């Protein structure tokens, strides 16, 4: 009996602390917040998505929210910093992020869902979100204006209507009453709209449905939970990790190359040198680029790769295999300037080379199975 009493006490404690935690969560400036990194131009990831969304919310950023800190975002940050009387650095540091968090709203779940579903969308404050979203997959198919999107009535407009403007603002008052009933129904079935705002009330949900942002769990202003409460924490982080990170709307590409150029080069490198050490693969990508520069070879990536008899992997069709991540990384390294081959234009495998002519070229070095030469 005593045992069950203490258990009940503990249970109550847990519920109360959970409640405090929930109210903390639902306060505007702590809803979803940046991690503590300084965000620099060129960065990618969730923090950049948030940065772009918040800047768009107050009208500084007009581009697409894609999670890549490109030039458009850079100018937006700088304009924002100068407008709000901060030092203009173009870096989203502690102060910039704090001011942004105070002056804007961010509905992480909504924004991430838009990107995951490939919708075209905008995130301007003061405008209902449902008219800012396009239909599923609209980002790839239509290159239309952002302003025109969302006029189409289908595509989950229904869900979004439950989201009043600016994400959380209007919903906050109604949140606490619901939560007060929580003790009686610790694991209730979810009201439908809750599933769209899991970050507001993680404790109401079964662990696998609840993806609260990991950084808040660790935030210092939170009351230190009892040992028991820590148990659900790691479980709750898991779905967050699998579900909401890795949302990516765009990629960085090196100046002058497209992702498809990189892909085709990666295929060539993979077909030619998949068994080779990594440097050997970078060297082969570098040879392709050296030929691009050279006056005696074609001037496009595809021209160089598909030049008849230039690459055995092209001749025997191995180029059409699915390249791995290593080949892609090797290509990126080469495009960024790495050249282990030492400006080579040719390479050959001495065990299988059929042309006598290739042996007459001045050799530079051997990497793995290949000899690189001028």
């Amino acid at each position, binding site marked *: 009996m005593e045992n069950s009493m203490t258990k009940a006490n503990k249970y109550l404690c847990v519920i109360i602390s959970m409640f405090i935690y929930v109210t903390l969560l639902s306060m505007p400036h702590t809803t979803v917040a940046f991690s503590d990194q300084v965000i620099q131009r060129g960065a990618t990831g969730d923090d950049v998505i948030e940065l772009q969304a918040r800047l768009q919310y107050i009208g500084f950023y*007009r581009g697409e929210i894609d999670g890549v800190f490109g*030039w458009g975002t850079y100018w937006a940050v700088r304009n924002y910093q100068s407008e709000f009387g901060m030092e203009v650095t173009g870096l989203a540091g502690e102060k910039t992020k704090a001011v942004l968090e105070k002056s804007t709203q961010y509905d992480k779940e909504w924004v991430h869902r838009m990107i995951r579903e490939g919708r075209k969308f905008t995130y301007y404050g003061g405008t209902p979100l449902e008219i800012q979203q396009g239909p599923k997959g609209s980002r790839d198919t239509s290159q239309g204006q952002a302003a025109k999107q969302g006029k189409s009535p289908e595509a989950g407009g229904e869900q979004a209507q439950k989201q009043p403007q600016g994400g959380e603002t209007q919903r906050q008052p109604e949140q606490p009453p619901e939560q007060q009933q929580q003790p009686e129904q610790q694991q209730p079935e979810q009201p439908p709209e809750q599933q769209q705002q899991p970050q507001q009330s993680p404790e109401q949900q079964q662990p696998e449905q609840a993806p609260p942002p990991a950084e808040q769990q660790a935030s210092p202003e939170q009351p230190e939970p009892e040992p028991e409460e820590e148990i659900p924490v790691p479980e709750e982080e898991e779905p967050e990790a699998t579900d909401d990170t890795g949302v990516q709307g765009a990629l960085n590409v*090196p100046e002058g190359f497209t992702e498809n150029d990189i892909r085709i080069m990666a295929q060539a490198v993979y077909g030619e040198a998949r068994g080779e050490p990594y440097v050997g693969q970078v060297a082969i990508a570098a040879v392709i680029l050296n030929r691009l520069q050279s006056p005696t070879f074609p001037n496009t990536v595809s021209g160089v790769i598909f030049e008849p008899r230039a690459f055995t992997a092209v001749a025997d069709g191995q180029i059409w295999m699915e390249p791995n991540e290593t080949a892609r990384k090797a290509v990126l390294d080469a495009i*960024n300037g790495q050249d282990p081959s030492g*400006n080579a234009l040719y390479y050959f495998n001495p065990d299988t080379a059929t042309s006598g002519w290739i042996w007459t070229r001045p050799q530079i070095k051997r990497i793995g199975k290949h000899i690189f030469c001028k």
Partner: protein
Amino acid sequence: MVRSVIIGILAVALIGTGVWGYREHQEKNAILINAENNYQRAFHELTYNIDLLHDELGASLAMNSKDRLSPSLAEVWRITSAAQNDLGQLPLALMPFSKTEEYLYKIGNFSYRNAIRDLDNDPLTEEEYDALKQLYEQSGEIQAELRKVQSMVLQDHLRWMDVEMTLASEDEPLNNAIVNGFQIIDEKVGGFAEVSFGAENAELATNDEQIAENLKGKSINEQEALQKAKAFLDLKNTDGATVTESGEGLAYQAYSLSIPDEKHGTDIVMDITKKGGHPVWMLNEREIDVQKISLNEAFENAKAFLERNNFENMQLVDSKQYDNIGVFHFAGLLDNVRVYSDSVVVEVALDQGDVIGYEGFAYLANHEEREQVKPKLSRKKAEEYLNPNLEVMEHHLAMINNQLEEEVLCHEFYGVINDDTFRIFINAENGAEERVEKLANAEPVYRNEE
């Protein structure tokens, strides 16, 4: 009875195999003819383009009016590019035909430079006119030889597929009418008197030749190279490292080092020049985990790495994150002027924050003691040369190589037109727009339905 049934079955099988074999044969032939046709098309287009080139060069010689000369030279440039493209489609990759390709490139380069230049204020010099004449004659010779090969191909029904077979087989010497014809052309081009293209034409120096020219310091041996590497990478030891020397193909001599990275169980590979012991490039082959540190922290590490290795006055000009790697481009800084030709690239792994890649080709090829320069035009004056639609966001002074491969001091403006960002270099001497670049936006991930 049984016998006749068996005979019947065998007969049917035989006929079936025959039909199947015939179909296969037909299909194979169709594909061969298709491939052959592609080669033939490229070849005949090539001869056509060389014809055109010769005519157009002749026409430009006869021209007196300057207004017609520029378009004509532009046409020459276009034709050389088309001819180069045709050459790229012929199976000549393992055959020495490079002199002709280089020759085409030089004609293209020469005509382009003169087509874009203002011939009213700066007419062709006597020397350049002579060069044009020479080019006309030489292209005539190439044209004649190519026509010979072409008529041979047409009359004797020569096939490019046979050229391919000949090149692929190990038989030496190559004996094929087309191959021989092309070899004659290439030898001829090799024997052409060196055309003087005028002072402006930069020679085709490759990167490694520039490095060889610019290297300073005394020669080091293998042990010293290892010591340099140890200091460069801040390693405790270089046990188990292997050192090899570069071959004759590289203009400068270098040691290639492979040093075990004990912490990650992989190898760090790098090249160090023999002369002066300068690291050229470095790569760590290790796998990289998921991102743990921010791009900004990685930048601090990259900066510290450069400072530790005595790179003075380097400024970050571009940073990009590729998944779990941060790539940082630094340019040299000379009294607040960015020197773009003195650039190095540092790669940092975003899991542990260590430097996993370095390359300094441009730095080694170009870095030298420079004199400080003062811009003649002020920033305000230079801005007047900009497109009025451009909203200037950022300004630097910068030293770049312009199209004529000269180092020029420029005002570097970053600006926005609509939603696109541009980088514009205005010559700080005369206000010329030396370079205008549209800076890349991030590329969307194209989703395929999975």
